[in-house]
């Protein structure tokens, strides 16, 4: 009888321990971002590369809003600015744009100003508000105030900036949420390392953040061609001429045979 009681006691103790452990683990996970996945996280630019959809998914604590951001390296670029002189439009100034990300793609579960406050956006450097704070314009001619909007327009036009992506949010048990987003990587993206951030907001404030790297590299014909063009330009130039001449002669011969020979 005593043995049975002891056994029951042990079982109760072990059961309680397991129960508490599970609950504690669940509590710990409930506050964390888990299963943060990017597919693919390694992108290869080959002969038939046409951009790729980047699938981002994660399990997050209960949030009011989620933002996923993919950002390229900060760089300086020189742009030509057009203006009207008499009745024609021509380049009237050169503008140096400093500290602009080479790529900026953002997806969110709602409009940014509904997810978080303006201060939070600026503090966390999210959206065009943050880009406006980061970048500077320099020119030998007076700036007219349209530079930022025109810069964004140019970047959106070539696909390197986009802040209209959507994040899908699904409920999970234990006050958890599953977030998924598909972000389109444009075809002209330069090779390099890109950083992807996941932000979770509650009551307008950021409370969880995670990040991951996306590696983009050139392979195969793309790598070979660029390598030859930039490292052996003379050989590349001669090759380009020989290929063009050969193609021209070959096509000429094909057409000559088809037409039954020369006149």
């Amino acid at each position, binding site marked *: 009888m005593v043995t049975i009681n002891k056994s029951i006691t042990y079982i109760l103790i072990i059961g309680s321990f397991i129960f508490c452990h599970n609950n504690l683990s669940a509590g710990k996970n409930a506050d964390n971002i888990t299963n943060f996945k990017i597919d693919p996280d390694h992108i290869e630019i080959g002969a038939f590369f046409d951009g790729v959809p980047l699938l981002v998914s994660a399990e997050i604590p209960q949030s009011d809003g989620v933002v996923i951001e993919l950002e390229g390296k900060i760089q300086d670029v020189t742009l030509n600015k*057009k203006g009207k002189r008499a009745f024609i439009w021509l380049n009237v100034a050169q503008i140096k744009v400093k500290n602009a990300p080479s790529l900026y793609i953002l997806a969110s579960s709602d409009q940014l100003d509904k997810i978080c406050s303006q201060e939070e956006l600026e503090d966390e450097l999210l959206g065009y508000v943050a880009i406006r704070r980061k970048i500077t314009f320099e020119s030998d001619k007076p700036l007219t105030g349209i530079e930022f909007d025109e810069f964004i327009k140019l970047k959106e036009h070539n696909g390197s900036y986009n802040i209209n992506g959507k994040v899908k949010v699904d409920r999970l048990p234990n006050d958890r949420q599953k977030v998924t987003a598909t972000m389109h990587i444009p075809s002209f993206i330069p090779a390099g390392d890109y950083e992807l951030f996941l932000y979770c907001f509650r009551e307008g404030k950021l409370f969880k953040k995670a990040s991951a790297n996306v590696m983009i590299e050139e392979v195969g014909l793309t790598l070979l061609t660029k390598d030859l063009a930039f490292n052996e330009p003379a050989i590349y130039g001669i090759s380009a001429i020989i290929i*063009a001449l050969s193609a021209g002669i070959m096509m000429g011969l094909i057409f000559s045979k088809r037409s039954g020979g020369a*006149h």
Partner: protein
Amino acid sequence: MNPFIYLPIAGISVHVLILFSLGLGVGFLSGLFGVGGGFLLTPLLIMIGIPPTVAAASDSNQIVAASTSGTLAHWRRNNVDLKMGLILLIGGVIGGTIGVQIIKILRTTGNAGFVIKMIYIVMLGIIGIYMFQESLHKLRAPLENVGETARENSGIDRKKKISKISQAYQSLPFQTHFQKSGVTISILVPLFLGILVGILAAIMGVGGGFIMVPVMVYMLRMPMHVVVGTSLFQILFTCISVTFLQSYYNQTVDIVLALILLFGSTIGAQIGAKVSDRLNADQLKIILASIVLLVMLQLTLGLMFRPDLLLSIQGGH
């Protein structure tokens, strides 16, 4: 299979059929008129998103293939005046070298693109209107034209038509007879014209056929069928040098882009050369004049209307 191809130097992907069709269409015009087609293809490539510098340089590379194919086709038809072509080519190389230096100076001033477009507009406008007017005049008066053509063929009116400029040509030294073209002229004239075309070709980033063809027809009075073959011969060698220089100094020749374009353009050039045999000179001239005027109009409107984007990445024309 993915129909898009990634262009390694341009850094973007484009539908293969779009590039092939562009090459085919421009190659057809190349074979038909003896023009390299660069003045049409470069703006079209820019329109589909190829960076301007890569578009111009790769275009030169594909013109090498189209011109080879077209030159061979016309060579077989005995349509190339080798003597005239070589003199024009020497002038073209000298002019091209001068033109490259002019471009360097224009780029430092920051408005090379505008100057290039203005030169395009003026040149295309003069050539297009002149060709169009003359061809239209002949088409409106077919009966008079028949008689005129007959007299021209018999050589009776040819001397009467020699203008004051032509008389000035005849007073120049180094008079040479160009047997294939059937003209006697000082070698200084084609040499000077070659230099002039070379300068313009380097500034405008094209082979120069659309300038050379009217120059040979109206100023050198060469027969149309020899003009086409000789023009293609001159374009071929001009574009070979441009391809090498662009590859070596600027790394802007996209061989993948050029390959797809040249595949289309070589086929198009052969078709164009065959069609040119079946059309008469006036029909050819009026079609070419219309194309030249349309390109000029597009360029003019492009300068006059507010562009969608006020900023552009530096590096193109």
